[in-house]
């Protein structure tokens, strides 16, 4: 009889402790809004003419890219990682807003993610969702996903149809185009059961053609395999930033 009592009280205490632990590590939602820009203006497909660093005019008819494996570092320096990929497509507004449920509650000051598809996930066979080959982001000439597609036109282009065609991908050395993006947040974001701040990430298309490798469209208007791919990848590595307040 006595023994049973002890057992029950132990059980209750254990349950309470477990519940408290659960409360401490509550879950929230990680929400990220992607916004595509060209320099300081929102990207518009087709109609608007932009200029690269060499003054060559161009427009953009397609802009899409894979991001994934989002991680957040909290203000105490601890990192929490998620798995999975999202295809951000300028043409589909819904694709620009992503959210990941069950993210540990906390205050975070750094966002880390991958542009591209890791080699493991690049070699996993037929997949659905963001990685379904129907999304047109799978290379058939060579196995693997295209990480980023930018298409457009420029009178400076050396192709007969004045096309710009930048299909960047590749996960094997020495043509590895996977880039890890690390963005310190200007203000720590809170994630919790009640409140979930939205992180706004901006991608600037013009970076594809500026630094560290300026692109002259009369010399390079098409990248569709390993040739010159890492040149552009080094440029897109610097394409992202956290939005200023009020944007």
């Amino acid at each position, binding site marked *: 009889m006595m023994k049973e009592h002890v057992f029950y009280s132990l059980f209750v205490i254990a349950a309470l402790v477990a519940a408290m632990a659960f409360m401490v590590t509550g879950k929230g939602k990680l929400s990220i809004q992607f916004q595509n820009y060209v320099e300081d203006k929102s990207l518009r497909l087709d109609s608007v003419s932009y200029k690269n660093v060499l003054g060559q005019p161009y427009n953009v008819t397609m802009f899409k890219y894979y991001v994934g494996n989002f991680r957040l570092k909290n203000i105490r320096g601890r990192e929490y990682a998620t798995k999975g990929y999202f295809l951000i497509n300028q043409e589909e507004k819904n694709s620009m807003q992503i959210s990941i449920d069950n993210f540990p509650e906390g205050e975070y000051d750094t966002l880390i993610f991958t542009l591209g598809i890791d080699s493991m996930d*690049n*070699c*996993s*066979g*037929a*997949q*659905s969702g963001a990685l*379904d*080959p*129907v999304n*047109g982001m*799978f290379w*058939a*000439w*060579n*196995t*693997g996903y295209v990480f980023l597609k930018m298409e457009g036109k420029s009178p400076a282009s050396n192709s007969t149809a004045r096309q710009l065609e930048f299909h960047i991908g590749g996960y*094997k050395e*020495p*043509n590895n185009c996977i880039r890890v993006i690390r963005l310190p947040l200007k203000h720590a974001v809170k994630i919790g059961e009640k409140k979930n701040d939205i992180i706004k990430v901006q991608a600037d298309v013009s970076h594809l053609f500026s630094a560290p490798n300026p692109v002259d469209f009369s010399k390079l208007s098409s990248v569709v*395999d*390993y*040739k010159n791919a890492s040149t552009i990848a080094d440029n897109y590595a610097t394409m992202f930033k956290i939005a200023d307040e009020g944007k």
Partner: protein
Amino acid sequence: MKKRIIYFVLFPGFFILLLAGFAGDNNYFAITAKDVEFHIPKGFPQPVYDFKNNTPTPAGFVLGRKLFYDPILSKDSSISCGFCHQRIAAFAHIDHALSHGINGLIGKRNVPPLENLVWSSSFMWDGRINHLEMQPLSPISNPIEMNETIRNIIKKLQRNKEYAGMFKAAFKDSVVNSRNILRALAQFTGLMISANSRYDKFMSGEDTLSPSEYKGLQLFRDKCGQCHKEPLFTDNTFRNTGLAMDTNLHDSGVAATNGQMLDMMKFKVPTLRNIEMTYPYMHDGRFRNLKQVLDHYTQKFTKESHADPILVEGIQLTEEDKSNIIDFLKTLTDQTFLHDRRFADPSGHY
């Protein structure tokens, strides 16, 4: 009362058995659960492709077979996988040096056999495809092969009643999507296993080799086995065999996929199983017969050719050695595989 129940159960049961007897036994194309069991043949290593994530079922296999032989996968419904990959040639293409595709367009490579694919870590002569399930996307979208998109294939299949039923039977989620198409094809091509040649029977003690075949085997192990490694007859690496680049095709092999000079003219070490049936030979089909292949290997190559160190000095073979090796290579012909009814085309086109 009891008796009535017994009749009630027995009678229809008997009837069903009778029907099954008629339909099952005579049906050359019927696929049973036993037909799709995967066993690692004696002496073979663990496969690279993991069937655990895509366990073959009769319905999945039958769907894969139908897709493989259906020209619906090409833009104008003219070309199927089976058009290029012929069963009688171990799914290579007899007598064409280079593949023929849509509108009679000629490709730049020789059609390889499809056999023991689940032991391959990469596909195509240059290894550019890394997964068996993703492989069909290449011929499907190639403008000179099938010239179609996976998106459009899904639309065509969704409109087709027979396919809708087959996807339902084959996959829990019943959907016609790229994943199920690719997995059904992998169930079919993945089970194309050749491991019952006279060589295999010799290895397991069920058969003997003639003196010249046996001499050929010993020469083969000494001179060729490092690359064409038993029991798969490939070590899954890429090597330069000293072939000069064809001046029309400009095919530099692995180097064309990654720009690395070191990979110039490197091609996959192909399996030699059923080699008797898969002529002509090499990535561009430049050799009509095995004798020409062996004559090639006995040459000395220049340093500039970057031929593999094993080959650069030329392999020393007498004419008799060559004919012994050829005799041995013919013991790799697997009649069971070449005539396996499971892989025959039920529509009878091929």
